[in-house]
């Protein structure tokens, strides 16, 4: 799939925000399937602190848009049990940093139930949460911990980067029979983009070529897609053509699309907002460096968040997240004939 997507010029396509796209996906799925319900902190009247769920409780009522106590492990556990017995819960985990509190329910319970039961039980649930720094929220409200869940067989992991992907991945996740973690960049909720009305389903496991190019490939996730696109534009002025690929789901991973692009351009930078060390960027880089080994003109490079807790002070925080400028500089350095 490559942008511009033909479906986006069809009738019924509106320009809406990322938050609206998520909201719409949930509303459509809840209308379609009475088993779908939402639970989490301040999801009902408040519509979450980010207001992503505004209006849903009015349409679906407080049973299906259910405010919980501040009990992340508890309500994630409830979702697992509800999913095992015929419901399709969507857990709202306010900040990705709170994954720390739900790992047992997610990893030891949700992810393993289908396998451990020899295929008898299944856990069709979605857990949506956030990633992303530079919101001045300091070290416990700014982490991008998607590498953890991507490491766990039995979980699927989606990282939408545009309103369209946000809608399409959410709908696919809700219809999936497995536990799916959707990580949204909390700084992109107000970003706008074209989204069709009604069913948009983006298969889990399909990367998206967000921009075609020939000299270098940027494999970028979530918040870093826009960084890569900006860098790609800046590089044009330097006569360099960058391709931007968004895996969209880390698990399953569409490694074929990544490797193919790497073979074409011969140069790759992986950009991801998780800490660089032992982050998702390591897996993507390792897969590409292995799969495209004989085609690479330079080592696969990575740009991740700095390996430091996210500092509060804006002057420090801004240093920790990869920028278009850094990426442009790195790409130019890599494209200089050796």
């Amino acid at each position, binding site marked *: 799939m490559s942008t511009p997507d033909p479906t986006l010029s069809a009738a019924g396509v509106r320009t809406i925000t990322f938050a609206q796209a998520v909201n719409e996906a949930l509303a459509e799925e809840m209308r379609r399937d009475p088993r779908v319900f939402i639970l989490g902190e301040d999801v009902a009247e408040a519509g979450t602190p980010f207001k992503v769920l505004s209006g849903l409780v009015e349409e679906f009522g407080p049973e299906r848009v259910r405010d919980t106590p501040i009990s992340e492990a508890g309500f994630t556990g409830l979702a697992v049990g509800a999913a095992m017995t015929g*419901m399709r819960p969507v857990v709202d985990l306010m900040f990705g940093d709170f994954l720390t509190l739900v790992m047992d329910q997610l990893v030891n319970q949700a992810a393993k139930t289908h396998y451990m039961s020899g295929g*008898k039980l299944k856990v069709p649930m979605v857990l949506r949460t956030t990633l992303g720094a530079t919101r001045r929220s300091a070290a416990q409200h700014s982490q991008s911990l998607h590498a953890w869940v991507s490491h766990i067989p039995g979980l699927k992991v989606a990282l939408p980067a545009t309103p369209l992907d946000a809608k399409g991945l959410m709908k696919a996740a809700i219809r999936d029979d497995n536990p799916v973690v959707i990580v949204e960049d909390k700084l992109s909720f107000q970003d706008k983009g074209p989204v069709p009305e009604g069913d948009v389903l983006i298969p889990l496991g399909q990367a998206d070529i967000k921009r075609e190019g020939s000299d270098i490939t940027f494999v970028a996730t979530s918040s870093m897609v826009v960084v890569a696109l900006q860098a790609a534009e800046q590089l044009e002025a330097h006569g360099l053509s960058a391709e931007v690929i968004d895996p969209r789901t880390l698990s399953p991973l569409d490694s074929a699309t990544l490797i193919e692009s790497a073979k074409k351009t011969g140069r790759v930078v992986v950009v991801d907002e998780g800490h660089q060390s032992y982050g998702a960027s390591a897996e993507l880089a390792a897969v590409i460096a292995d799969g495209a080994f004989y085609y690479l003109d330079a080592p696969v490079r990575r740009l991740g968040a700095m390996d430091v807790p996210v500092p509060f002070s804006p002057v420090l925080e801004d240093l920790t997240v990869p920028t278009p400028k850094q990426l442009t500089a790195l790409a130019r350095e890599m494209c200089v004939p050796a």
Partner: protein
Amino acid sequence: MTGRSAASKSTPRSARGKATGAGLAADADPPRHLQTYRQMMRIRVFEEHANELYLTAKMPGLTHMYAGEEAVAVGVCDALNRDDYITSTHRGHGHCIAKGARLDLMFAELLGKAAGYNRGKGGSMHIADQENGNLGANAIVGGSAGIATGAALSTRMRGTEQVVVCFFGEGALGQGLLYEVMNMAQLWKLPVIYVCENNLYNEYTHFEEVTAGDLLGRPRAFGIHTAEVDGQDVTSVSATAHELVERARKGEGPSFLLAHTYRYYGHHVGDIQRDYYRSKDEESHWKSERDPLTIYGAWLQDRGIATAEQLQQVEAEVRDEAQRAVEYGLEAPYPDEGEVTLHVYA
């Protein structure tokens, strides 16, 4: 699954669909009582075999035995319908059998065979029997408290009359998760019964050394209805369980049942030298004075509901069933290697 259909010959016991309205003691119906006695005996004999399979190095890994605690699982499940749910623990064989499972498929699971309840992939600590409402044993202490409470939420949202029993040991009172979910269960009046099996020990530590205050104070803090029973007396357990299940079905909300009991074997099959944490005297006191099968057998005979011969007959039948079930498990084939990558995703 050919293994399954072959297996179905070996244990004729089919789970009762519906629980009888009241506790055991209110009922003089001999078949029901003999069936209850049989269920307790099946657990007892199952565990003897499990221990033996370990000692003779036929069973992979370790397993935690339920012998001594039979009256709790059987008494509680006496109040449940087949489509009611339970969640179970690392010490889960008793819950599984009491909820209606077949011994042959259980042994097959403990032995890692494809015919097992989980196709050999779960083993003792994850045995699940969905058809009888057993959502699975759990190797994380307290780990199923969320699942049970969520299943209870699900029954309400789906508009069924099902109830859920969450079994756990007193050690699970150490896990914060339990408090989180009890709060939600009470807030939303969910039909879940938390059954705390206090067998005195968290592994090798007496519960009093690691448990402050009053056990029942914990559910009460959330306004949850509580009850306490002699877990060695199946008629008491059953009577109380019927009350709590009735409450839950009527929408009156969750409850918490504290059952006092004792495990006969070690924490797991390998825990043989136990002197440093509990005395031989204590063990033999429980076995000789507080044995749930002896207590119930005497109760039945006192009331003329069953004769000693009848009970012996049940035992003989169970021993026979169990023997055949073990053999079935031992002979059953292992899963194909290709199964290793099956069921990671649905």
